[in-house]
């Protein structure tokens, strides 16, 4: 079965120093790999003890593992038997006899029953009922999806808009071509209420949607920041073009035309927030967004 090359021993066909000499060299190389691995492991211990350094740790660990691996592979390739052997495949199926014996033994337990059908049916029904009952705890994993998806804290309008630090915003705070993210006052943690305020230029031909002519304040318009595609924040405002670009999948919205999508996979405009000014001159929202914010879902329109 073997034609192990043992270093120092001549092969069966006489003195052929070639493979033997090579064999000796490979044996030394293999041993050398193990030595390198040992040294690397020691070095790794030192590095670790000295405080650690990620690159050194990775390289030394690689040398340790690689040394062992290379040593083993050299050993296997050159010194272990690699003669080809053949093994017969036997049929995978059981023989008819075996199947018959199994069936007979399996059926043996049933033969005393008068009617198996009723028992099986009722047992099956019980197991099914248990299975259904076991699923009920899944219901506790989360709340019923209710109005939450269709409303935001802006439903408490009229309500001031504030920046993340909680400070309210005056129109003059926002330069022309400026944009800023705001939330309803007191709800700066609400993930669905992030809003973009954009101060557009006169020459950009802003066209309010029908019924929204008074939704802006001093050329400042507000849209939901959540992309109507899959909900990434649309944080990219291209001021010259007047386009909002979502960095996730490149949905593009035209700010001057009600943030309707002009490119990309988004199929609906960003919902708009109606703005006004309160008596102190701060910007307020006078109602919730024009549509449910963020990505679509089955009954969004109901």
């Amino acid at each position: 079965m073997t034609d192990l090359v043992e270093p120092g021993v001549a092969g069966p066909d006489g003195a052929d120093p070639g493979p033997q000499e090579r064999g000796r060299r490979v044996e030394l190389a293999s041993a050398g790999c193990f030595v390198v691995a040992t040294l690397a492991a020691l070095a790794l211990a030192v590095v670790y003890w000295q405080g650690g350094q990620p690159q050194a740790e990775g390289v030394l660990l690689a040398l340790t593992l690689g040394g062992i691996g290379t040593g083993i592979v050299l050993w296997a390739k050159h010194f272990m038997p690699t003669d080809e052997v053949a093994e017969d495949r036997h049929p995978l199926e059981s023989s008819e006899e075996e199947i018959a014996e199994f069936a007979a033994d399996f059926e043996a337990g049933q033969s005393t029953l008068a009617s198996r059908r009723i028992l099986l049916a009722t047992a099956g029904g019980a197991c099914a009922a248990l299975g259904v009952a076991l699923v009920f705890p899944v219901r506790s994993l989360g709340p019923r999806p209710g109005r939450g998806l269709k409303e935001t804290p802006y439903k408490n309008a009229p309500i001031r808009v504030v920046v993340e630090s909680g400070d309210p915003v005056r129109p003059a705070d926002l330069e022309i071509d400026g944009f800023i993210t705001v939330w309803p006052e007191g709800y700066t943690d609400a993930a669905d209420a992030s809003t973009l305020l954009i101060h557009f230029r006169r020459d950009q031909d802003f066209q309010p949607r029908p019924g929204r002519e008074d939704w802006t304040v001093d050329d400042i318009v507000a849209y939901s920041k959540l992309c109507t595609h899959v909900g990434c924040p649309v944080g990219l405002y291209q001021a010259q073009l007047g386009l909002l670009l979502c960095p996730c999948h490149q949905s593009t919205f035209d700010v001057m035309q009600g943030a309707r999508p002009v490119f990309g996979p988004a199929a609906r405009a960003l919902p708009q927030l109606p703005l006004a000014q309160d008596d102190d001159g701060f910007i307020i929202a006078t109602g919730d967004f024009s549509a449910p914010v963020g990505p679509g879902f089955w009954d969004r329109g109901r």
Partner: protein
Amino acid sequence: MSELATPGPPKRRRGPEHLLTHRLARWVDSRLGTAKLARTALNKVFPDHWSFMLGELGLYCFIVLVLTGVYLTFFFSPSLNTVIYQGSYGPLRGVEMSEAYRSALELSFDVRAGLVMRQIHHWAALLFLASLGVHLARVFFTGAFRRPRELNWIIGCTLLILAMLNGLFGYSLLDDQLSGTGLRIVYSITLSVPLVGTWLASLLFGGEFPGPDIISRLYVIHILLVPAVITILLTAHLAILVRQKHTHFPGPGRRDDNVVGERMWPTYAAKALGLFFLTSALLAFLGGVFQINPIWIYGPFDPAEVSAASQPDWYMGWLDGALRIMPGWEIRAFGFEIPNPFFPGVLLAGLTFTLLYAWPFLEARVTRDHAEHHLLDRPRQRPVRTALGMATIAFYTVLFLGGAADVLGATFGLSVNAILWTFRFLCLLAPPVVGVVTYKLCKEMSARDGVPTASRVTVREIPRRLRHGEERDEAERESPALRS
């Protein structure tokens, strides 16, 4: 027992039975009777083509993932409670973040060897999926999924899906800006399922996005549930492989009713062990030398913020690309809608995996070939299958590139709009072109080899001796046999 002898000149005074290894082996055997089984195992024959080791690469990556992963669990804290960072990374000191993110930063900056372990773990995940990909391709193009290995194919596809999901969930645990954006997309795709989407999303996340529960739930799924299922399926995958014996390529002495190769012991086992060490070595090298997932640059997750060039890990790139390439179509009626992300995110993904699972059965039906196969095909000899496979790869490659559209645009100074439009057409045009070219190449290469390619019905069966010594070549009845 002499197979267990260690090499070297025999001891002069005592026989080998007194060595510790012998005594141990006899101790176990006297209680379990392992000698016969062990001998069978030692003599198992494994064909030794290099392409048969690709699955092993996946196995070794999985082992490294588990080992490094266990280490990481000792430091990571899957909590979304808000904390203020006071660790050693200056640019985030004083910043509000979740406990999960903070523990990941601590692991990266303040735990000795923590960063290397984290990086090895992440590189191992990328290579785990890459190995599974090339292994899948090898199995597909050589027809190794045919009877009797359909079950192993199904298990393998399931392993692929589980690996992808576990990778996605794993890097999402850290609650950094990039992976949190990914979770937002997962939530929205779940939401887009008609009828039950809002329920599914609410149950999975514990409410509306982001919710306080998702990280701790993903943690349990990532460290316990999915690895357990992967381990069970992997064991079954290997057990079936051993039971059915590995396939082999046609060649001298190789037939459908035998398997030719090396014995398991000592050579094959040694090579496998060596490959494990070498794979781990490469992963360790990557983990130390190439920075991966620098979460400190991304910052903690904030649902109102996002970075340019936000991509998922490579193996999810095809889904991301599909989302980008998809034109802005939705179906709306009577107040109900099927939102846009459903089509690329759910339908396409579902179709992909359904076709993948069904392939062995589809091919068997179309070729009317239900015979057992243990000899592999050379891809060129199955031009239709190879062409379809290459066309599919072309399709998903376009999707992968689509996922990188903004980075391609920024790197090469091209319009991202033009790139996406190009990919919209390319994903439909490239597959047939690639398919036809592949088909012709296969035919040509086969012609040069002088071997006819398989026609619609293919068999290379040699009469097998079945139980009771019957000879049967049912396949030969149905179609002409090919010369091998």
